[in-house]
């Protein structure tokens, strides 16, 4: 693990960046699965252009938090605003929330791209169709334009010659880069990554992280659940620690690594570094 991080770290410039207005605002979110209280009063604001890394033990609620932002999960309390909209709900004057229709939520999700641990490419479509299906069939983009854009994105993720390949013919690292290109094809304002490298063989991790670092340099707003602290050092503006559904640490990388406030963070760092 440390060897991989060493590969990633050197390119890191000190990066105080221009951050825009808040683009994702999570306020007092509560989430339960039955009796399992997974998110407890979670609040988090992410500004345009910011890169936020979330770490935490298995089961601490990282994936759930990410999925709630995209409204892949409902929430029991609190609100999530993304790209200027209340995600997944309509709120009446009394503050009571009703879930939006499938179509309305689908539209909201188009502002965000999501990348999963298990890639989830569509196995029945080739790479090009994987990337263009949403722009063309969902957004009604002109097919030729969408294809040109897709090829541009493939270039960006370093796979210009894989347009015609099927997912089953690609390595894990290549599949994940295609998944990133597919998410970017929607021209999202925010990118959500859920452990994008955890399912990869060690030698493929850096090819995916490089793409993500590149993306962060181009000013993309990113929320990244990962344990790759090399990436956090290289690209993050803030690193968060989650434990039992609570954000227990929220600090710039230098502070997170050198002067952690939470016992959870100290324990985590002692294990990983």
């Amino acid at each position, binding site marked *: 693990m440390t060897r991989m991080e060493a590969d990633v770290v050197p390119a890191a410039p000190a990066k105080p960046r221009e951050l825009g207005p808040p683009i994702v605002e999570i306020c007092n979110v509560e989430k339960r699965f039955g009796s399992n209280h997974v998110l407890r009063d979670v609040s988090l604001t992410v500004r345009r252009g910011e890169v936020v890394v979330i770490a935490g033990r298995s089961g601490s609620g990282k994936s759930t938090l990410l999925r709630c932002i995209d409204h892949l999960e409902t929430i029991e309390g609190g609100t999530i605003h993304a790209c200027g909209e209340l995600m997944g709900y309509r709120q009446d004057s009394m503050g009571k929330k009703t879930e939006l229709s*499938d179509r309305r939520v*689908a539209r909201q999700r188009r502002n965000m791209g999501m990348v999963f641990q298990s890639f*989830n*490419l*569509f196995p*029945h479509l080739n790479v090009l169709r994987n990337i263009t299906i*949403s722009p063309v069939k969902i957004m009604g983009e002109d097919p030729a334009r969408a294809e040109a854009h897709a090829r541009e994105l493939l270039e960006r993720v370093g796979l210009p010659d894989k347009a015609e390949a099927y997912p089953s*013919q690609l390595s894990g690292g290549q599949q994940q880069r295609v998944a990133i290109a597919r998410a970017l094809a929607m021209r999202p304002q925010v990118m959500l990554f859920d452990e994008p490298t955890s399912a990869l063989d060690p030698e493929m991790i850096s090819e995916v992280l490089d793409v993500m670092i590149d993306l962060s340099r181009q000013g993309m707003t990113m929320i990244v659940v990962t344990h790759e602290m090399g990436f956090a050092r290289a690209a993050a503006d803030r690193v968060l620690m989650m434990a039992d559904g609570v954000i227990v640490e929220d600090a710039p990388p230098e502070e997170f690594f050198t002067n952690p406030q939470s016992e959870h963070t100290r324990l985590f760092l002692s294990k990983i570094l």
Partner: protein
Amino acid sequence: MSWSWDHFMRFLFSDYMLHGVWTTIWLSIVAMVLGCSLGVVVAFMKMSKTWILRQIANAYIWVWRGTPLLVQMVIIYTVLPKVGIRLGVVESAIVALSLHEAAYFAEIVRSGVLSVNRGQKDASRALGMTWAQRMRYVIIPQATRVIIPPLGNQFNLMIKTTSLASVISMEELFRRTQQLAQLEFKVLEAYMCAACWYLLMTTVWGLIQKQLEAHYDKPFGPVSDSSEKKSDPVLSGQAAQV
């Protein structure tokens, strides 16, 4: 009573018999098409988020799979007229066979849809697809591979099951065979003749099914080094014995 090739050959290609064969063919196709269409509806009702729709689907499947088709057919033909729904022989046969098929096909469709990896749903939702778009572009194309083989078996069954429509005097292959047998007192010849025709129909369908399965069972994309294709347990079993 001795076997008469003469009668057998005469029965086999008699217009009377051929008509029965043709009726069996179209009855099977019509009942299959209607039954599968309804089956898809029932399957999606069963997977719906709405409690009442799920319960209706469950009840439907429970009743139609839990009672003999023969009983259903007689009820539809003889009891429904008493409550004011009068269906002819042909309509009754089609309705009974379709409703029955739907109950089985619903479960086939449901397991096909459920066989698609959960991650596919997440990914398509995250890409901003609505339910209908997810189904159309992502789920159904992948579920089809799983659905095709049992669908083929259902059609094979359907060809044979249409013979039950003879009890409500539908003039399909089996009924015509019965009548020929009684008319000429050549029972064995007549039924052997029917067996031959059923066998021919199911065999032809078997060949078509094989083509379909071969088409849909191809790995997605051109075949490469993929060692992931599952080996046939029967074949590998034989290989082990050799």
